[in-house]
């Protein structure tokens, strides 16, 4: 029997699927990526073909094997990380979805969410699930599918239909329908899962008339859920042993095992997740309480805040304002700026998120003078990403009552050294970009490896983790306070600007 030398991580994202094969020292030895079709049936609706998601995963599995030359039987276990909240309902017998996958961004179920709010369920839902009522989460998407596919409600009640987020769908497919499971992190993003009782919440299920029998079993993030059918894995049956939603997987991949550990993934937007320990901390500032991961019989909770505009602000500089030619140039321009940080860009292009929650706010720029240069403008835009991260992290500290000694970061903007230094300066804490920026896939790989004993325990994983460069704060306290105060003033000023949009 050949030695099991590798772990495969499947990272099923919103626009593409990837498979990465890691060796024991977490070196990626082969990978493959495949995009799939995004469907936009109506304005604000985003859907995907679940079969296409599945086929893209099959393709990247093959691609990773071909690229690496590794044989399927050499894989010790598979870990899955996935786009969260995206909702799939399928026929238990045939395995055919009854509707497209309704993607997390899709707003088609917004009226259902709005109705729940109007009926006064916001507090109840928040208390039970840690989430605020929104079409973003799976619950209203399931309701929408059951309402819009003929006979679906009746079939669901008869137990003929199954619901799953993408993790569930993939495990079900890989295991040939044997395993129908989801993990804590994904379940906690459905708005149906009681994060205190660790069970589907019957009150919310009743409220939305969702039959419990269509929901998967909720299991830990690291255990053997089932095995690949040999025909899905080139003749080999491999344990599927790790699962986590993408942001939680990134927290795990960043070694966020202790309470107070925070990671920030700078993508188009920015997702900040903080490990708050074994007790859920409900936010007073509309941050989301979620389950970070559950492993070895323990469940670790997390607070999550997101920034709507992060990397997209840099894209705006490049594509909208044409001030830079590529993202890397933003770092050069910021360095070249001679201004004393007196320009403020508030990129509230689609409103302001946590902790302001002002969807009517629109972007603004303050502090312009005759001497303001392009370099100053670019720098102020980068700074806005750091200020917004501080807004969320300060709120987290306040909600959780936990000191944050270090911010771990990943994602595209984590390569921008100037931004990382400013982030450390404005937070007054160390900022550490991950050495391996693929933290999401890494998190899934760790979870799978732990379940099958490929890695003994968290300590062994810690010993493998290669620390990235640490950016230490070097800004004087009074400068930091002044800059952040001015940011708050800029945001306040932005919020006062509410033009009458009814006039043409």
């Amino acid at each position, binding site marked *: 029997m050949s030695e099991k030398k590798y772990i495969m991580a499947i990272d099923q994202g919103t626009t593409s699927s990837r498979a990465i094969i890691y060796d024991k020292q977490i070196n990626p030895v082969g990978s493959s990526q495949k995009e799939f079709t995004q469907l936009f049936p109506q304005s604000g609706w985003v859907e995907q*073909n679940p079969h296409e998601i599945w086929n893209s995963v099959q393709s990247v599995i093959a691609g990773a094997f071909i690229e690496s030359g590794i044989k399927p039987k050499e894989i010790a276990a598979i870990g899955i990380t996935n786009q969260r909240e995206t909702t799939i309902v399928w026929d238990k017998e045939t395995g055919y979805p009854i509707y497209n996958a309704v993607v997390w961004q899709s707003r088609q179920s917004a009226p259902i969410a709005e109705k729940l709010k109007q009926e006064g369920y916001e507090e109840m839902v928040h208390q039970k699930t840690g989430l605020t009522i929104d079409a973003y989460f799976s619950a209203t998407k399931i309701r929408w599918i059951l309402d819009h596919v003929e006979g679906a409600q009746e079939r669901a009640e008869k137990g003929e239909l199954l619901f799953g987020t993408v993790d569930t769908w993939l495990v079900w497919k890989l295991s040939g329908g044997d395993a129908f499971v989801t993990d804590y992190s994904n379940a906690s993003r459905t708005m149906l899962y009681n994060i205190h009782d660790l069970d589907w919440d019957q009150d919310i299920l009743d409220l939305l008339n969702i039959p419990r029998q269509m929901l998967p079993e909720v299991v830990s993030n690291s255990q053997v859920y089932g095995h690949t059918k040999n*025909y899905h894995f080139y003749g080999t049956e491999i344990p599927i042993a790790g699962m986590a939603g993408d942001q939680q997987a990134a927290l795990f991949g960043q070694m966020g095992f202790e309470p107070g550990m925070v990671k920030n993934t700078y993508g188009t937007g920015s997702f900040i997740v903080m490990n708050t320990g074994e007790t859920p901390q409900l936010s007073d500032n509309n941050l989301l309480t979620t389950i970070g991961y559950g492993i070895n019989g323990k469940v670790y909770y997390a607070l999550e805040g997101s920034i709507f505009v992060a990397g997209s602000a840099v894209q705006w500089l490049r594509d909208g304002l044409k001030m830079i030619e590529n993202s890397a140039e933003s770092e050069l321009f910021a360095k070249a700026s001679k201004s004393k940080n007196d320009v403020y860009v508030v990129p509230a292009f689609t409103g302001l998120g946590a902790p302001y929650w002002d969807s009517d706010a629109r972007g603004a720029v303050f502090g312009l003078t005759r001497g303001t240069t392009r370099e100053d403008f670019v720098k102020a835009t980068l700074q806005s990403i750091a200020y917004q991260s501080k807004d969320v992290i300060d709120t987290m500290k306040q909600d959780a009552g936990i000191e944050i000694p270090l911010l771990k970061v990943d994602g595209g903007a984590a390569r921008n050294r100037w931004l990382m230094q400013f982030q450390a300066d404005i937070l007054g804490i160390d900022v550490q970009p991950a050495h391996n920026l693929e933290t999401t896939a890494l998190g899934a790989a760790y979870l799978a490896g732990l379940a099958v004993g490929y890695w003994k325990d968290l300590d062994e994983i810690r010993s493998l983790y290669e620390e990235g460069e640490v950016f230490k704060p070097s800004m004087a306290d009074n400068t930091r306070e002044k800059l952040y105060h001015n940011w708050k003033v800029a945001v306040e000023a932005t919020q006062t600007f509410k033009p009458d949009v009814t006039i043409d």
Partner: protein
Amino acid sequence: MRIEDFLEKQEKRELQLVSYLIHSGGEADYAELEEHLDITKASLESTLDSIAYSLRPLSENIALDYDGRAVRLWMDELFSMQELQHFYLKQSVKVQLLDYLFRNHEFSLTQLAPQLALSESSLSRKIKELNRYLKEFELKIWNGRVQGEELQIRYFYYLFYRFVQGKEALKEREAGISLQIVQTMENYLQVSFEPENQARVFLWLQIAQHRMHTKKTVSIRLKENMTPYMEDKLYQKIRSMLWRFSSRYSVEPDEEDAQMLFVFLLSSGVLPEPFFHDYRLTRNRNSPAASLDTYLVETIIIQYGYRKLPYMLERRMYHTLSQIHAALYFFKGDLEVHDRLFLLEQEQKIAEESVRSFAETLREITVEKLKLPNETNNGLMEWSLLGYFSVLVMVTMEMRQVLRVGIDLKHLPMYRETTISLLGLLIEKVNGVEAEECQPDKPYDLIVTDRREAEPLETGGKVYVLSELFSPFDQKNIERILQSLKK
């Protein structure tokens, strides 16, 4: 098996001679032909006489003129070599024998020999010869019957009536019911076959209808190979369609009939691409071909380092590869209608050097993954090489970057436009190049100009200054630059 194998030695030689004349521009002298056919002058003359005799019924389509020194061919513009081949095949004893066997299921030498105007010993010899070729299909004429797996028999006769005997030979037989099945299938599967593909399905069904009356059939390997497909949704649908159909008409298909129809649909390329695409997304992976299709598509993508293939191109790749793999998995043997080696050589002309060896690599992967026996006499293996080659050519051609050439001629006010057009035509001889008169603010990979001024052109691309209009020197240099830009 080659299509010519149905002919006798003399008939083969006659066709070979006509084919040579076609490739030589319609005329050849005796010495050339003697050398090509490896025969003496006397044999050549007797061959020519024999052709002239044979071609009498086709005098309005084809004729040979020979005078002891040279041979000249005349062919009507609407007549082809293929039709001539058909004309010979129709008269072939082996073809008549196989046709008789299909129609009558069984025969005895004493019964058949007079019908074919042969002695019993001659007939036995013909059967022996045929058995040598049928071995590739794992078939054998024995005890008055064609023996072997039923799927192989149907597959062989499908090729036989499609390429050798002509579909019209079967037209009247089982036509009505087959047509009804095609129509039912179109409705039931919600598929619309192209007319040519509809005719192929129709032919398969006619053969199937006829063979359903055969009592003793063997389907051991089919059953074994179909095991992973039993839960396949398309198979289930075909099965249920045949069952429903049989409840209304006097047809009695069994499980194997449904299986064989399914195999035919998967491997013959008759399913339209959009239909196949939908099927592919939902098909059961517990089928050897399904996993292999994905594996080979990814192998091709990785080999060429394409970050992203156009979605429609990927779909077409799957459509073709899937047919190759289903055929290799289910069938044995192939009827070589066109010279594969010749086709490969032709395709090689438009492909990069490495494509042939990569196609062979793909075939090796297939042999390994499908656990195919290493059979040297299985024509399908050679056919698959051509198939892989075609897929690779299709991908490399489509993914090839188009180079844009701008022609900027400032010193030719009078003949400018004509010169630009002519120069454009010469430049576009290089594959994947588009040439046009230089447009301001448009990016070009290469600008060909007659400028004499020293100032550089405002272009990110390369510039070539013509030394002389239409000079082979310039043409050679431009081609060299374009080839280097492609890399």
